[in-house]
């Protein structure tokens, strides 16, 4: 079971990736590593159990279920997300990761359960209200606004814009200064994401990877507290993955909480402070990244039970004997003597 906490083995393993990505951060510097260590240090003594309480949770999910007809897409009893950390959400296809994202951000409403952000309940809030509280998300299928320029895409992310009200929009003087400040901020972000040269291009002309960058940059325009990234690395070439990873780590350095869905285990191992594994709608394991690959429940969920144990001769004999015993028992119960290969037709005949 995942309850075996081994804090001693935790520390050296966790420090290796932090050294690796310090190099990928362009500005470097020792002060940048500090917040990351904070989240990691806080999580060090947390037992590796499903639904475990975190020292400083920013998002708390309780008893949330969502069913589509007969299918239970999400059924999470308890999940806490540590503030200021990077939490990776992994699981096989159809595990309910994106549905959980949709529930958390108001794009979908659950059948039961409550969830809160910073102690404030988020149930029954519309997506835009959730976003205004400081929880922004990106989408699995990138939603760049194609026929808006890159800069317009960015400006859209800014919150509390005076010029977005109908009447004030007619008086340019009332929003021009704010617009200028937002433009400066957008250009800073675009420079960081190396998109500043494209600011006047339509977002629809960007490549897939650039759209991912733009979507992330646009989300940052709102100064969020929690950033939820749905497969930020999907379909991005390896070189760009490295720079995206650097940006995600930067978010943590700036004190934001990052929750992301990802399939690439190398990425997950590299950047997350904590990993939550979902399968068939449930959280089946939680823990620091290095604990996950050893977790039997996770291995079973991804690969099926007994995937990697080659059958030994003794075991083969044992399995065979078991099967034969079963067949014998069945035959005895039915009172018929038939070959094992015709068992099914025999059953139908009964």
């Amino acid at each position, binding site marked *: 079971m995942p309850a075996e906490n081994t804090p001693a083995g935790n520390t050296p393993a966790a420090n290796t990736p932090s050294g690796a990505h310090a190099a990928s951060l362009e500005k470097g510097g020792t002060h940048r590593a500090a917040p990351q260590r904070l989240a990691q240090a806080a999580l060090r003594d947390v037992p590796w159990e499903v639904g475990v309480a975190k020292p400083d949770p920013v998002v708390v999910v309780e008893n949330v279920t969502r069913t589509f007809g007969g299918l239970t897409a999400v059924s999470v009893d308890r999940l806490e997300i540590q503030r200021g950390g990077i939490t990776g959400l992994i699981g096989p296809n159809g595990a309910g990761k994106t549905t959980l994202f949709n529930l958390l951000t108001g794009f979908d409403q659950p059948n039961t359960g409550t969830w809160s952000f910073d102690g404030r309940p988020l149930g029954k809030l519309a*997506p835009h209200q959730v976003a205004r509280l400081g929880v922004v*998300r990106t989408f699995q299928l990138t939603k760049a606004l194609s026929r808006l320029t890159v800069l317009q895409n960015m*400006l*859209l992310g800014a919150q509390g814009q005076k010029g*977005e009200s109908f009447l004030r929009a007619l008086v340019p003087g009332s929003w021009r200064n704010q617009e200028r400040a937002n433009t400066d901020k957008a250009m800073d972000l675009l420079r960081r994401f190396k998109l500043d040269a494209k600011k006047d291009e339509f977002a629809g002309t960007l490549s897939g990877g650039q759209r991912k960058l733009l979507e992330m940059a646009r989300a940052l325009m709102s100064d969020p507290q929690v950033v939820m990234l749905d497969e930020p690395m999907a379909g991005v070439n390896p070189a760009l993955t490295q720079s995206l990873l650097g940006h995600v780590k930067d978010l943590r350095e700036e004190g934001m909480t990052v929750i992301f869905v990802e399939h690439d285990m190398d990425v997950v191992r590299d950047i997350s402070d904590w990993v939550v594994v979902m399968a068939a709608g449930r959280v089946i394991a939680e823990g620091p990244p290095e604990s996950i690959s050893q977790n039997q429940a996770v291995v079973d969920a991804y690969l099926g039970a007994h995937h990697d144990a080659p059958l030994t001769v003794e075991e083969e004999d044992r399995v065979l004997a078991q099967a034969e015993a079963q067949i014998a028992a069945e035959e005895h119960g039915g009172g018929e003597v038939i070959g094992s290969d015709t068992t099914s037709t025999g059953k139908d005949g009964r």
Partner: protein
Amino acid sequence: MGDLLNALAVAGKSALGFQAVFFALLAIGLNVHFGYTGLLNFGQIGFAMLGGFGIAISVTQWGLNFWVGVVVGLAAAVFLALLLGLPTLRLRADYLAIATIAAAEGLRLLFRSVSASPVTGGTRGLAGFNGAFISLAPWDTSRRYPILGTRWSGGELWVALVGWVLVALLCLLVWLLMRSPWGRVLKAIREDEDAVRALGKNVYLYKMQSLVLGGVMGALGGMVYVVATGAANPDQFQNANTFLAYTVLILGGSARVLGPVVGAVILLFVIQFADTGLRALIGNGVIPEGLLSATDVAQIRFVLVGLGLMLLLVFRPQGIFGDRREVMLDAR
């Protein structure tokens, strides 16, 4: 040669007259709906009818002042927009299209029904409500004035002038709005609603504002039409006009401030030129009577317009003012 000049003059009058103003106003409203916000309003003519009958009923039936009638017409359009938008704007785009097309046709049938005729005049409609407006003209409206080879009545001239001023003001309004952050949100909604929601904008509210704004513009179009003709009849407001307004919008260039205006002028010019020109050619015997008779012209001119529009969409899909780069992005 004289016939050609005459056809040009008649077509020119049509392209500058109240009908062009009517279609320009409808299309400016549709531009806000469809061009900028991506709302599919297939019942713009319903808004125009409420605008027109707002004046007609207020003045002739209720004995109110002309300008109160204008306010009544605008209020009716706002009400219709809210009524259509409240249930459908939360749903996919198709539902608004269904609701608007049904509402426009339903309203027309209601207005021409026997039970409504004490108020709307039924199929005969209402007349005699534009006197207060025509009398405001600074020139003698009973005279006819020769302009560009045709003759305009003083009243026609006055309505067309006020109409074009209205078009100019609304273009200015659209220009002001669409360069503001408010317009940016509308354009973003056209591209992807969910992305805009995720950025903290109340998409429903913006779509509602857009629907009301464009509907009010359609109502103004209807007012210009009934004031110019001096009569309001439900059967003037066939929903085919909505699609002609879409033609105008696509011809001129969607999501461009001046697109609907240029589109309206060109469409009206082409239709009238084809009409007068063909009639002249038939009259001269250039086109033999057996091939095409004068009575067919009314239909044939729309066939020609349709062909022209097809060619336009093949060779210039962005319309006259549109940005080809922008239009081609959809194909990706």
